[in-house]
């Protein structure tokens, strides 16, 4: 097991190296002179030369790459072309809100969706089952921004329970944080509940038809034990996969919710950078999201063996 984890961690290196090469070439291979792209249309030849000098663009490609990787390894992600601040500190300040809302969303989604899915499978083809499935279809099909505005209309404007927009960090206290973070998280939860509840239902339905479920009932186990001790653990692996990939998507930042609720998160940082052609920031964001994806997938794979003893590495 430990050997497996070690091998998987080592396997992250070539994956990230590939991503790094891609990100590096992204700027170098775009048609035109990177310095010209960076400097913009109004730059003078002298300015261009200065930028080339600063970025090492005069050097051969492989030297440029090695220098760049060296900077990355030292935590130097470059400097933003727009704000002239280090990219690493920009990302650090935006990571907090995104991560907090992602965690809150996943926790609420799992707490809601898993029992819903279990219920739907247990009461297969009953009113409860159809209700869960109908909710799933709705949660999937209504655009996120619509749900967000509806929630703002109901909970903020009519009932006045939550502020309309904005973000307060956890460091300012749990309650103020929750007040601001709850609505955006709830908005995202509707999608994830739909996804996870569907997955739970499908897998529970399959497991409930297995022989060992009949054995559990023949032992005189009450339904609660049958469902949660015998069935859910067997259905866990695919559910876990969906939860994991869902979480990875969330920490990549969700632009729509961040925009609707005016949250200074990763999603907006990325979109702003793309619109402003802020290449160092775009590069850093691609590297970061790829790394988080690889990391989350690794954690999911490892967690499989906690649920299914047949999976041994």
């Amino acid at each position: 097991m430990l050997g497996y984890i070690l091998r998987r961690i080592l396997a992250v290196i070539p994956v990230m190296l590939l991503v790094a090469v891609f990100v590096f070439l992204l700027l170098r291979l775009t048609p035109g002179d990177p310095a010209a792209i960076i400097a913009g249309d109004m730059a003078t030849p002298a300015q261009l030369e200065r930028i080339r000098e600063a970025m090492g663009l005069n050097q051969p490609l492989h030297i440029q790459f090695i220098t760049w990787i060296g900077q990355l390894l030292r935590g130097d992600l470059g400097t933003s072309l727009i704000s002239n601040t280090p990219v690493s500190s920009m990302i650090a300040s935006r990571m907090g809100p995104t991560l907090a809302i992602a965690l809150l969303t996943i926790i609420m989604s799992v707490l809601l969706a898993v029992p819903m899915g279990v219920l739907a499978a247990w009461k297969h083809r009953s009113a409860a089952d159809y209700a869960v499935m109908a909710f799933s279809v709705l949660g999937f099909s209504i655009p996120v921004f619509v749900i967000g505005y509806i929630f703002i209309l109901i909970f903020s404007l009519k009932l006045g329970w939550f502020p309309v927009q904005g973000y307060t960090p956890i460091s300012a206290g749990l309650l103020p944080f929750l007040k601001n973070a709850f609505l955006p998280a709830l908005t995202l939860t509707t999608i994830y509940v739909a996804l996870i509840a569907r997955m739970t239902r499908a897998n529970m339905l399959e497991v409930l038809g297995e022989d060992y479920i009949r054995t559990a009932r023949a032992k005189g186990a009450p339904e609660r034990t049958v469902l949660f001790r015998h069935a859910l653990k067997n259905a866990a692996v695919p559910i876990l996969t969906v939860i994991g990939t869902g979480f990875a998507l969330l920490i990549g930042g969700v632009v729509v919710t961040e925009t609707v609720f005016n949250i200074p998160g990763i999603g907006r940082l990325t979109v702003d950078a793309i619109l402003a052609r802020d290449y160092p920031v775009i590069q850093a964001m691609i590297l970061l999201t790829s790394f988080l994806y690889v990391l989350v997938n690794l954690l999911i794979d490892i967690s499989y063996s906690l649920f299914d003893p047949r999976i041994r590495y």
Partner: protein
Amino acid sequence: MQFKSRNFDDAAIAIETDNLTVALPDTAGQPQVLKGIDVTIRQGETVCLVGESGSGKSVTSLAIMGLLPDALKVTDGKINLQGENLLPLSQAQMRELRAARVAMIFQEPMTALNPVLRVGDQITEVMELHTKLPPSERRKRAIAIMEQVHLPDVERIFRSYPHQLSGGQRQRIMIAMALVLEPVLLIADEPTTALDVTTQKQILSLIGELQANHGTAVLFITHDMGVVAEIADTVYVMKHGEIVESGPVEQILRHPQKDYTRALLASVPSLSPRPARPDVSDIVLQVDRLNKIYGGGGILKKLPRAHAAKDVSFTLTRGRTLGIVGESGSGKSTVARCIMRLIDPTSGQIRLDGSDIASLSRNQLRPHRKKLQVVFQDPMRSLNPRWTIARSLTEGPLNYGTSKSEAMAEAARLLNVVGLPEDALHRYPHMFSGGQRQRIAIARAVMMRPDVLVADEAVSALDVSVQAQVLDLLDQLQQELGIAIVFITHDLRVAAQICDDVIVMQRGAVVEHGPAGDVLGSPVHPYTRALIDAAPGRDWDFQNFRKMSEAPNARPA
């Protein structure tokens, strides 16, 4: 054959069903699945419920457990457990009774245990649900019952997961789980059908031993008459939801009253081999020192090696049948798959009509594929469910350039040969019974006009009466077309009836090889002898309703 001849008239009645009727209330016409079943089981008695698939054996057992699927409802009758009618009981009351007073073990030990829970915890769970024993006491009792079912190294097995145990060990765990609370009645639904004969023998004697120690009443459901002869006190024969005939085991086997019972007994294949057909010199398949080694590869560490087939050699001539028998893991299926080149042999030769196909590439193999066809074990899964029978039958010939009309005509003709109506061509597999589907699978194989047919446990999933028909069909095709058959089976009775020559395999190696009459009639190798000894009911001549030793020209088995 020593039957049980115990008398239970004085023993208390453990369970009794009285006019038990089960129907499908939501289906048009509300068909009855059980039509007034009366079964009585006394303390310490073993009652065998026999019948073919669909006869209602399992429905009876599930009705007693109160675990009928939602579509089925008890519409009439009583189920009295020690005098108390179970049918009016609430869900919660039934739950309390399960495992505590009525316990059940199932057919498939591979799937009946929860794969993600430790087996020890699965045993203690029974006590957790039904008693107030503290955890330490639960564990002590679980260990004790595991010792009683003769599991080795109980402390280690207690901590094991099901996939770490063998089939026999898992079934012992199931039995331990069922008996830990000393129930009045144990229902065993085909508990040994999925096990090897030698394991089956051990499990049957274990159930007998525990029954004697605890005085449990046993309801044993089986389709295997051999098992019935070994263990039953009383036999109930079921057909289409009705009890056809019942009585003490010897009476049923010696003097069956009803035609159905006689037919059922007559279709049990005999263990005495049929005479071999005259040998011909026309060799179609010759296997020479075939080896298959799995594993040994691996990038970071060497994987363990398994020698699945060791120096297997045999020849097969036109129109004859070679049986490969052995228990699970003996390598018989590995050999079959190597011959068909579904897997690649590690070394050795496979000469089909004179040319060695053991090391040909996929493309080079193509012209030879036609000569080698296969029929698999499970007819439910070996036909494409979304294809019509016509499409399944003609696919092969069309691939080899036969014209569509020609292939369709041949498909219609062959369906006739295998005893199915021509309109079956345009139907789908799910519209046929298991036996019919196996006939279709055979027709599909024969469509290609093969020289060699590999039948991998081709009749093992079928009821005995259907089994007999399919074996007859193979025999008939063989006579008409001169096909040579490699017949893989774990069932010595079937092997005795269909094979001219037999190979006995154990752990990848051939331990005995010769004419069926010699190998099964007077086995030389101790493993072959052990296999024959373990065959249940081997001293009884089912077709003639007498002991083997009472036959006129009796030959010691």
